């Protein structure tokens, strides 16, 4: 367990604000955050995860093309030997305002372990990740989740 996560915004997506805040939030509770930033390809994510032996990849997609950009992500991870890695995705994951259940299923089918709707607070994701990785947050030894 490396307590390392890879963070980034996928595809041609330039939305940087949420990414900076997620970085800040995960770092401040003690995760090691490898932030590859906006406009990142599947390969960028996977390379970073392989290099750093990451436990999880957190993909953001805000701009609507997530559905196209995320296809085959899980398969590509497996090809690169990341068969155990947790995949989270969040943001505005489709074009337009769609039924959340449909959107969630879409990404679950693509192999994402958790899928987050618009307006998710970092705290929610931190709690989930700690649970999925069976980490005791207080042992990571940083500030409290707010």
């Amino acid at each position: 367990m490396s307590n390392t996560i890879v963070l980034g915004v996928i595809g041609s997506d330039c939305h940087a604000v949420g990414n900076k805040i997620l970085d800040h939030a995960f770092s401040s509770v003690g995760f090691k955050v490898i932030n590859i930033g906006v406009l990142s390809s599947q390969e960028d994510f996977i390379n970073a995860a392989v290099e750093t032996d990451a436990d999880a990849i957190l993909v953001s997609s805000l701009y609507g093309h997530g559905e196209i950009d995320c296809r085959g992500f899980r398969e590509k991870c497996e090809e690169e030997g990341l068969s155990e890695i947790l995949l989270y995705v969040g943001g505005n994951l489709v074009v337009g305002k769609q039924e959340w259940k449909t959107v969630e299923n879409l990404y679950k089918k693509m192999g994402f372990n958790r899928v987050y709707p618009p307006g998710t607070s970092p705290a929610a994701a931190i709690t989930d990740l700690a649970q999925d990785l069976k980490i005791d947050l207080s042992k990571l030894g940083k500030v409290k989740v707010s």
Partner: protein
Amino acid sequence: MMLKNKKWSKEEFFRVREDVLRQWETGREIDWDEAAAYLKNVPEGQNFCVKLAAAKTEGRTLVQPRAGVALLEEHIELLKYLQDEGGADLLPSTIDSYTRQNRYHECQVGIEESIKAGHSMLNGFPAVNYGVKGCRKVLEALHLPLQARHGTPDARLLTEIVFASGWTSNEGGGISYNIPYAKSVSLEKSIYDWQYCDRLVGHYEEMGIHINREPFGPLTGTLVVPCISNAVAIIEGLLAAEQGVKNITLGYGQCGNLVQDVAAMRALEELAGEYFASGGYEIELSTVFHQWMGGFPEDEAKAFAVIAWGTVAAGYAKATKVIVKTPHEAYGIPTKEANAQGLKDSKQILNLLCDQQSLATKEVETEKEHIKNQTRCIINKVLELGEGDLAIGVVRAFAAGVLDIPFAPSQFNLGKVLPVRDNLGAVRILEYGNLPGTKEAREYENSLLQERACYEKRPLSFDMVVDDIYAVSKGTLIGRPGRR
């Protein structure tokens, strides 16, 4: 390529043009003379410059939506709806993000997937893939002026296509469509490419064809301090003017404090006028106010309020036009109905407001002078760094952090500046980084921030910045601890 702020020669332009038109197959459809002839025949009512000039004379504020979908027929239907049902005064075509990154192959995938899915899988209209034929179809189906709105560092082919299609305005600029929209495109490249786009306008102007240009004012849309966005807007205006652009709309994204917003818009217009005059450019200047560009509340009734409050500011700022958000903003690309609702909410506010007293307060005057002074410091420092050349100055200024856009993704942005709201909700500078400015101005802003720290009984910190980023979406202006 040797960047400098100098009008391109015909030779350079047409040499580069050959490559541009080869970037994607639709480029080949463009014929210089035929395009000019087509543009000359665009009805007056569909010319952006004409409509803006009329609004300015009448003192009206026009409303314009953002809108774009993947499929041509659907896109036309959407714009028609916004024109006929929404009551838009000006129309956009918002371009999808693959086009913005010049990934036309992926656009093609997006178009095909959209046909399969039965709804748009792209976040905008892939104008390059549709080419002149498609884009003219859009124009001809409508009776309002049409503008390309995007976020494209290299928009040369797109620009060629939309102008040849009779669209009479183009949004963007070498800074505003790079730093907030890209990660690793150099400013040398994007400014150079936007000189091309502007030179194209210049050529058309020489032929008596009037085309409007609009630098993208709001940048990252997230707590951008007025002096920074105004500096960038004026600089991009000057760069465009040098290439022969005659009709410019400068923009500003709402910060949320009415006094600051009105002051910022007045400062922008006045200062731009000064710089154009001293540069010897004769420019027909208009302004655009962007309703709140940061995170929106999810609740639609609350979103309507944010839209309305933005329009109040646009109205008091006497903006020539206002760019309108929708009640779907927090979720995704709006339906045409939601988009029309944003227009109607906005228009109703403007109609209630337009005949009323202007906001003539001492506070607005003070704030305006403050913004002007800060903006002048920045622009003059940029010129100094460029040893008189504005384009070179911009490149060096970003490297030095003299220009620095909060929260921008570009690696060419220093990212040291940190904004935060003061106790009245105006956006101020918490961390200056290397931004130029007078000691007095800093002390003034700092005292304002101390007021907030005192009031909230907590230190100024990044946590406060984060609270402010979330605030509007959570229903307030200032990110106070424990506020509903």
